[in-house]
């Protein structure tokens, strides 16, 4: 029996996940409301003026998105666990990475939608106006999204195998993500304030994305089969 191709399975799993999400809207609703709450709480906690908010907005945006992303990431594998899909998947000849890629893509799309919806909210609530070019923020947003989601999807697959499932994910994701977080916050702040070029930080994010995508793809099968 020949095993089905990687792209075919990836596409099928991704389509299934997107259809499920389209009908339930579980992930996007909980992420969106959670991020909204974080934004409101930050506004109370820091009470920023317009000038100040431009300097701290990079940090606020990414902290809110990071927390919201964890909400979505935690739901990634829960459904598959409940119906023993992971076990079925393990014994099937399908390549393990197809599962991982489709889950990571699905999360990437969810977080991208979240970013798209949250951006205007930040602009309104913190009266932001970017000094640097806005298209750079889009590049940073996509690279940062993948940086969080690729490792997050991977660590979510690890943390559902532990006893305290949902709390384990941020405990292992946050320490590893610190350089990526630093890069996305700094890059965003540089663009918003226009103080200096965000080039170094964007490059760092891009290299981080490439390195950890390779590491995830190399090790996912090991994690899927860990017993």
């Amino acid at each position, binding site marked *: 029996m020949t095993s089905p191709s990687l792209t075919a399975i990836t596409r099928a799993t991704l389509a299934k996940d997107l259809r499920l999400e389209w009908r339930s809207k579980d992930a996007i609703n909980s992420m969106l409301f959670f991020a909204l709450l974080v934004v409101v709480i930050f506004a109370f906690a820091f009470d920023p003026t317009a000038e100040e908010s431009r300097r701290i907005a990079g940090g606020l945006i990414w902290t809110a998105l990071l927390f919201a992303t964890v909400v979505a990431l935690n739901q990634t594998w829960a459904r598959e666990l409940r119906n023993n899909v992971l076990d079925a998947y393990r014994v099937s000849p399908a390549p393990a990475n197809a599962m991982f890629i489709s889950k990571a893509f699905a999360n990437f799309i969810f977080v991208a939608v979240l970013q798209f919806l949250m951006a205007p909210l930040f602009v309104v609530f913190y009266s932001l106006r970017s000094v640097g070019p806005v298209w750079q923020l889009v590049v940073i947003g996509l690279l940062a999204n993948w940086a969080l989601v690729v490792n997050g999807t991977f660590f979510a697959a690890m943390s559902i195998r532990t006893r305290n499932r949902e709390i384990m994910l941020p405990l292992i994701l946050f*320490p*590893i993500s*610190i350089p990526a977080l630093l890069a996305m916050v700094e890059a965003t702040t540089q663009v918003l304030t226009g103080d200096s070029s965000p080039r170094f930080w964007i490059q760092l994010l891009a290299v981080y994305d490439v390195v950890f995508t390779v590491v995830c793809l190399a090790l996912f099968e090991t994690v899927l089969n860990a017993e």
Partner: protein
Amino acid sequence: MKNAFVVFALATLALLSYGLYMALVVAPTEATMGDVQRIFYYHVPNAWAAFLCFAINAVASIWYLLKRGLKSDAIALASAEVGVVFCTIVLITGPIWAKPVWGIWWTWDARLTSTLVLWLIYVAYLMLRRFSSSGRAPVLAAVLAVFGFFDVPFVYLSIRIFRTQHPQPVMGGGENSGLDPVMAHAFLWNLVAFTFYALLVIWMRYRLQIAEQAVEEAHAERALGERA
């Protein structure tokens, strides 16, 4: 094996005593910082020991993923635990040194911050082990160690660039700039002593872990026997 362990332990004890003597008695008092500077002979060797432990952990973890031997997992666990202890000591003795010399307990400078991040990564590693079933813990932990291994260059690079853009609230210069030969001598003895000490503790923890694995295996075998 047991004899080798005892000899090694005695050698470590002798080295540590000599290192302590060198640091407290032989080494001259530093001109500007005074006796506080003597924490240098404890602080820096501990940092070295911590990094050595983490390096051993990385090698053992990769080895485990390749060969799946329980021994390499025991080494990985032992070195991670011991490394976290050494790293904690570094993070505690650092502020004790910084307060009288710099006037502040903590500064988010490059070296302090990256040591803290390294500590966080390895605490996460131990947490993951703690909350995984015994069968899965070695694989999951080894995988996380690989992530940590690839993360370290990013941590150092990003924090270095991040910090050089800001003025440093630090008054003292680097301690290696023109170190007195007697001080360097005392420092090197302590470096050797703490290397031995780290290896000794890893060895002890490793033996304990091997014993634990044997007990667990015996339990599993007995459970199987009862069922049959």
